[in-house]
């Protein structure tokens, strides 16, 4: 078993791991000859299945992989990997390899950091500048003697990330969720904007319930006794598990370019509507014209406006905080296609920009809809 590669784009790799780490700690990383797969399946909340071509983050000319099963399955704490990758930012040369130390398998990240020194520094071991003093292990020790004038100094930093090797049989049972054909697919607007509005809504709903003082309300207040949002969430405790009843956002879309984000509480109903978004056409290479025309989304697309603006909407209810974590992928400024399976699930296909050779990096997020 052997894995060794140079990093091609440590910045993207680091942003990617940062976004993934917000969803869960334990990441199944599967190294294959052509693609690297990252999978996070948290106890609750959103699952993500990412498939990144080797060349997107690694330098494929130096990529070496040897395994009996043609793949290496690793379990890694993704936030530890992310922290390690931060030291590789802006470095010209960084290498990731699979190694072993006292029988513990490790991913070793070696970074060549260049910095400009003012000179006259007796000791040049600034390796723990990045806050990872314990892990650092300068590989060839930096040349500290000799002339002490100002010069560029190179430091080798090696960070060791403990991992588990998963046997092929351990991952056999893991499959991507299977979803019915979506009713609506639509390209999401700017994720940063969507995230800031979503966060505001979540905050509105949570400050609302927090700061409620029964004494302040007038007793004859209309609508006070209607079913509250948080109350209904409690009914679905079986689904919600321990999602600490954070507010649920209602996200809906249609095949005519509209996306609607809404939340309701005792005190207010608020909704943002985006219009003129794109409902992307399906790839005709994937299926026949006839098959395609039977898809619920294509049926919805053909619905005429005569059926009313309210027709053909598909709706899901999602956890506000979880949604916000999902949207953190926005830092990679991807193109996101959202697929709505009405009242059941939301599947996001996140395509990272800057693909080479037409290979597509795709992250797939599976978000369950909460029932009312």
């Amino acid at each position, binding site marked *: 078993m052997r894995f060794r590669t140079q990093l091609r784009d440590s910045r993207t790799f680091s942003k990617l791991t940062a976004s993934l780490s917000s969803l869960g700690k334990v990441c199944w990383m599967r190294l294959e000859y052509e693609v690297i797969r990252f999978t996070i399946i948290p106890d609750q909340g959103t699952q993500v299945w990412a498939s990144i071509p080797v060349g997107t983050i690694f330098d494929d000319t130096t990529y070496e992989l040897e395994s009996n099963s043609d793949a290496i399955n690793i379990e890694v704490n993704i936030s530890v990997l992310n922290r390690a990758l931060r030291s590789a930012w802006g470095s010209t040369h960084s290498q990731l390899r699979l190694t072993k130390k006292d029988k513990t398998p490790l991913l070793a990240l070696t970074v060549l950091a260049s910095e400009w020194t003012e000179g006259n520094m007796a000791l040049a071991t600034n390796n723990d500048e990045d806050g990872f003093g314990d892990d650092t292990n300068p590989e060839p020790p930096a040349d500290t003697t000799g002339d002490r004038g100002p010069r560029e100094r190179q430091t080798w930093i090696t960070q060791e990330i403990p991992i588990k090797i998963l046997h092929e049989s351990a991952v056999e049972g893991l499959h991507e969720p299977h979803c019915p054909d979506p009713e609506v697919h639509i390209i999401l607007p700017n994720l940063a904007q969507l995230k800031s509005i979503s966060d*505001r809504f979540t905050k509105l709903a949570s400050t609302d319930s927090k700061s409620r003082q029964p004494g302040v309300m007038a007793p004859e207040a*209309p609508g006070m006794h209607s079913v509250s949002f948080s109350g209904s969430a409690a009914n679905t405790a079986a689904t919600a598990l321990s999602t600490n009843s954070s507010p649920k956002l209602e996200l809906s879309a249609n095949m005519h370019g509209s996306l609607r984000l809404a939340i309701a509480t005792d005190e207010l109903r608020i909704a*943002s*509507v985006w219009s003129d978004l794109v409902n992307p056409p399906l790839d005709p290479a994937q299926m026949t014209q006839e098959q395609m025309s039977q898809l619920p989304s294509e049926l919805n697309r053909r619905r005429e406006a005569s059926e009313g603006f309210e027709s053909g909407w598909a709706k899901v209810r999602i956890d506000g905080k979880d949604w916000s974590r999902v949207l953190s992928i926005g830092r990679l400024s991807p193109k996101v296609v959202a697929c709505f399976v009405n009242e059941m699930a939301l599947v996001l296909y996140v395509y990272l920009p800057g693909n080479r050779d037409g290979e597509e990096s795709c992250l797939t997020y599976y978000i369950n809809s909460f029932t009312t």
Partner: protein
Amino acid sequence: MEPLFAGVSNNAHHLYTLLSCIGFAHKATVQITPDGLRFSVEEGRVIQGLAFLDKSLFTSYTFNPSTNSEPNNQNGTSQDDNESSQNGPYPHFVVSLSAILETLKIFGINELSESNRPRDTSITQTGIASSSAFNAPALLMDRSCTLQYAQHGAPLSITITEAGVKTTCELVTYEPDENEADIPLQRDAIIMKIIMRSVWLHNAIAELDSSTPTILKLSACAKQEPYFALSGAGGPFSESTVEFSVDQNNEIAGGAGHGTTQSQMHKVLFDDGSSRARATRAKLAPTVTETFLVSPPSSMGERIQQSYRFALIRKAARAMSVANKVSIRGDRQGVLSLQFMVELDDHNVPVGRPVGAGVKGPNGPVCFVDFRFVPLLDEEEAEMVMDAQVE
């Protein structure tokens, strides 16, 4: 059907600035008048905050009262003093003020400043008024914010439109508590009226606040020193006092030269090392006051002395930091009124912008935010000091 009220603003920033001044309470009572919207908040019947959104803040303001047959004389006073009666013929209702503020923030006006409202802690005059040069003013161009109240009992809706997104918030309106009344300020029995720049009051309160007092003592006298002093008492530390006294050496210009006096004032307040810990002697002046009228009735002696709960005064800190000037008034019963004049700045809007109706001259519209405080009675005061000592 034509709505009872609709107002369109292209600068939700202004609405946010004014309403955030009274953001200390969760719920606000709103009254719609022909001259603007009056937002009132209160807590425990001892503090009341009033913000008046003058109709000049809106590019379009339509109000169609169905029962507006009787003429009323509120027009003059409401704009001047927010003095209109709460139970007038105009529609009034209770809504969630925190939800309004949160919704107005969607307008993207507040992204760069604080995420939470650090009203109580901001000592310097930062606040919302000092918008940064990095606020993208161009983004404000094609935005609009519409407030609408269709009819009695309908929700108050706020619609925010900006590039490609339309956000609508419908706030449930509640019946106001019939017993709710304004804290009465006896306008014919005003015995004290002091007008000065708000930043000085803010600095003084912030200074006193550092010793965590429970009581604010106000002392004013026209004849002898200290002419005007604020003390913080009842805290775990000793009492500290900020005096605004007359400067004998410098020219006594009674309010002239704001620019220079301001910098001197800062010096007096913060310069000498001991000022943090104990009493600060401000040598410069009711030079800082523009108006200084103290005329207690003969029964009270020459000096007006009243105490207020410090925690309540602190709730006006946001208004102090945002406002330009403050008028400090007290009536014979000791009710304290702080009336803040807020000059809404337009300098985050590019020059040459087609100014709306709300813009009066280059400085933007001027609005008022009012606070009223019920004084502490002597027994209450003693009790609070006792409590503080027990702690």
